[in-house]
């Protein structure tokens, strides 16, 4: 059922300027495509591309995709608030910010993504979710699944198996949702728990929920089976062939400009810099020599950069000149452990060569970096 489309294209007798034209035009009001890539940035870029460039008047599109381990936050969310960034870095799990709203999700190959592309006028999330539920029930009639008015899909009226988000542009819109088939629930719960304290922000918060994999309910279900069932239901709904076209998100001829979109989604400015303004007000507990110091730290972070910073150190603990140098350098820096590490170690080079001073400086800086 799944065919490489471009091979077919080249044999069609029509005169075309580019092969991509044939790829995109189909008979019937719908097109089902599936990504061959598991890279979250590439797949999000495909969504952007279709949203920006496709004319969805004549046909709607269903896009099926899966990612290797990644955490995806909503457009207006705060990654420090939503997930354990330290753990993500350790486990090499990617962090992405999507362009649609909504909450944070954990993706891995056991979590399936569906994107419904329509014109803005035809944007209607409930219908899409009901289609998914219908597909699931057609596949396994005994499954107790239903759509809530928060646009979640619940299993056994208790467990969330799908979350939704949407993006609306001037003329087109998309609604995407996840479907938990067989994701690693242990990793999911540990990465989605933020260890950062003292954060105050107006970013969209995620609403935590109990989750369950469909695989746990029925061990015969796999991601492939579920994707196929949903595609079949979509095909019926739009009266088109149950035919899934494969798409390669790295194909620049098919999707001109896609590599720029992919790169943009990976930039620090997008992933972290788009965080709405927030502040941190917390206490560092530093064990120094035989005592424990309680250092109050206040920081304002805007566009992912430290806008203002205040550290309440005991008097003369650091030479005042050095303290003001530290604050001055922190201001305007990215709120990023790597950047700050490089910054403080570089600053140390021009400090007086005093072991005591160096150890205090290192202690303070290491604790500050743990906030990021």
């Amino acid at each position, binding site marked *: 059922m799944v065919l490489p489309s471009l091979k077919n294209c080249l044999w069609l007798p029509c*005169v*075309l*300027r580019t092969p991509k*034209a*044939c790829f*995109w*035009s189909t008979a019937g009001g719908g097109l089902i495509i599936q990504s061959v890539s598991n890279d979250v940035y590439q797949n999000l870029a495909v969504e952007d591309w279709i949203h*920006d*460039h*496709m*004319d969805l008047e004549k046909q709607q599109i269903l896009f099926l995709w899966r990612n290797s381990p990644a955490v995806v936050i*909503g*457009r*207006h969310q705060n990654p420090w608030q939503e997930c354990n960034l330290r753990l993500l870095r350790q486990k090499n799990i990617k962090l992405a910010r999507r362009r*649609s*709203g*909504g*909450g944070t999700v954990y993706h891995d190959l056991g979590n399936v993504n569906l994107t419904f592309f329509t014109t803005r006028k035809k*944007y*209607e*999330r409930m219908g899409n979710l009901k289609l998914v539920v219908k597909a699931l029930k057609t596949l396994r009639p005994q499954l107790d699944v239903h759509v809530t008015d928060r*646009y979640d899909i619940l299993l056994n009226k208790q467990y969330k198996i799908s979350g*939704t*988000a*949407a*993006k*609306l*542009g001037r*003329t087109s819109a998309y*609604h995407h949702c996840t479907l938990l088939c067989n994701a690693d629930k242990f990793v999911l719960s540990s990465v989605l728990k933020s260890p950062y304290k003292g954060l105050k922000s*107006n970013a*969209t918060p995620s609403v935590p929920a109990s989750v369950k994999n469909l695989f746990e309910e029925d061990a015969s279900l796999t991601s492939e089976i579920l994707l196929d069932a949903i595609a079949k239901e979509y095909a019926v709904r739009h009266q088109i062939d149950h035919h899934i076209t494969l798409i390669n998100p790295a194909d620049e001829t098919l999707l*001109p*400009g896609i590599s720029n979109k992919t790169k943009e989604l990976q930039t620090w*400015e997008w992933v972290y810099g*788009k965080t709405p*303004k927030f502040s941190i007000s917390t206490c560092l507990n530093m064990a120094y020599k035989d005592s424990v110091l309680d250092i109050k730290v206040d920081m304002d972070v805007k566009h992912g*950069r430290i806008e203002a910073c205040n550290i309440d150190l005991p008097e003369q603990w650091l030479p005042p000149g050095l303290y003001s140098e530290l604050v*001055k*350098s922190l201001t*305007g*820096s990215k709120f990023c*452990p*790597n*950047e*700050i590490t*490089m*910054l*403080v*170690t*570089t*600053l*140390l*080079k*021009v400090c*007086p*060569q005093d072991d005591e001073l*160096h150890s205090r400086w*290192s202690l303070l800086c*290491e604790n500050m970096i743990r906030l990021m």
Partner: protein
Amino acid sequence: VCIHRVRSCSSIRFIKSKYVCVFDKSALKFSHQQRLFRTSPVSCGQIVQFKLSDIGEGITEVTVKEWYIKEGDSVSQFDSICEVQSDKASVTITSRYDGIIRKLHYSIDDIAFVGKPLVDIEIDASKGVSPEEDVVETPPMSHEEHTHQEIKGHKTLATPAVRRLAMENNIKLSEVVGTGKDNRILKEDILNYLAKQTGAILPPSPKAEIVPPVWKTEAVPAAPKDKARRIPVPVSRPIAFSGKDRTEPVTGFQKAMVKTMSAALKIPHFGYSDEVDLTQLVQLREELKPLAEVQGVKLSFMPFFIKAASLGLLRYPILNASLDENCQNVTYKASHNIGVAMDTEQGLIVPNVKNVQVCSVFDIAVELNRLQSLGSAGQLGTSDLTGGTFTLSNIGTIGGTYAKPVILPPEVAIGALGKIQVLPRFNGKGEVVKAQIMNVSWSADHRIIDGATMARFSNLWKSYLENPASMLLDLK
């Protein structure tokens, strides 16, 4: 004139308000508004209240999350104005007009209401003759004749988007047959016209609009699909360069580098360069590489260079020293913490291998692997980046032969290694042979280090590398 202006202003506003609040009324009425404003004899533009259009699904209020423009910015039709969020949906609101933003009705995190004003835009009535008008050859109109254009006696209706498409393809609207209501020209009509011209079947291709960039500082690239549809008529146009200068503040790590490098330049540097014949070392490394690989370690040349430097520092400890700010005391450091300059995305970082004096070449290789992988992942810790006493910079991996490296305070010496080249050299018998040659450029602090010391250190280091077996004699 003044009174006339006021009167025409008020009548314009009255007619306009009927159309502004309904989002998807036919574009015809919108074009009517545009026509009106262009013919206004007034130089100051009209303030239009752009209302928040319907989001769908019966939603009445949204939260404003980000503004893409600020008061005083000029916008074009279809530019993004702001991002709003409603119940897990993020919506990009685009401008319906060309003009200047005069007022933002909401701040970030405010609740905005559908149907209420979002921004005030001053429509620029005094803008020069619009390119669309050039194409359609419209004579100036009075505001009674707002719905149609008179072109040689024929009325031509088209939306601004269609006009733009026609203009981009050098098409006169008067020559296109309109198939829409009232003979309106639609986008398909332009495409059909183009197809007839070129004889090709044009695909139902992606939309023509270029998505405006989120960051205003970058120049907008033209959408490649436009090129596909344009008629290939060679026109010699003056080459216009639309790049803009971009100014960014120096922040964070860069700021720290500025400080360090300024301090470094206060050190009186002197340079010393030499050539090293690595032919034997190259061979040795080839033999040792698989032994290291078996233990999961990548063996480059650096571990050898680092160990040889440490052996040299044992003989010339002043190169592993530090001078205090007042130049009163020289501290001879006991540990040889040799820094290795690494080029990362964030910039130049110099992690160091601690206590090389007690490490074997293999130990150094292991540690280098660890630092390199942390460095590329952006996860180096403070202890890795502090405490260095001597630095080697392997600029040769990127290219180059000679360099003039800058000493990293509080150190007093640094070496830059060029790339290894295969060059002809004379051997002991006077024959020309292939030799693997690398250049090294040292810089040292002339306040406490003299040329002779540097030269002797360099010779020693060179001798260890040119004859690796000699390192065995001095290894501790």
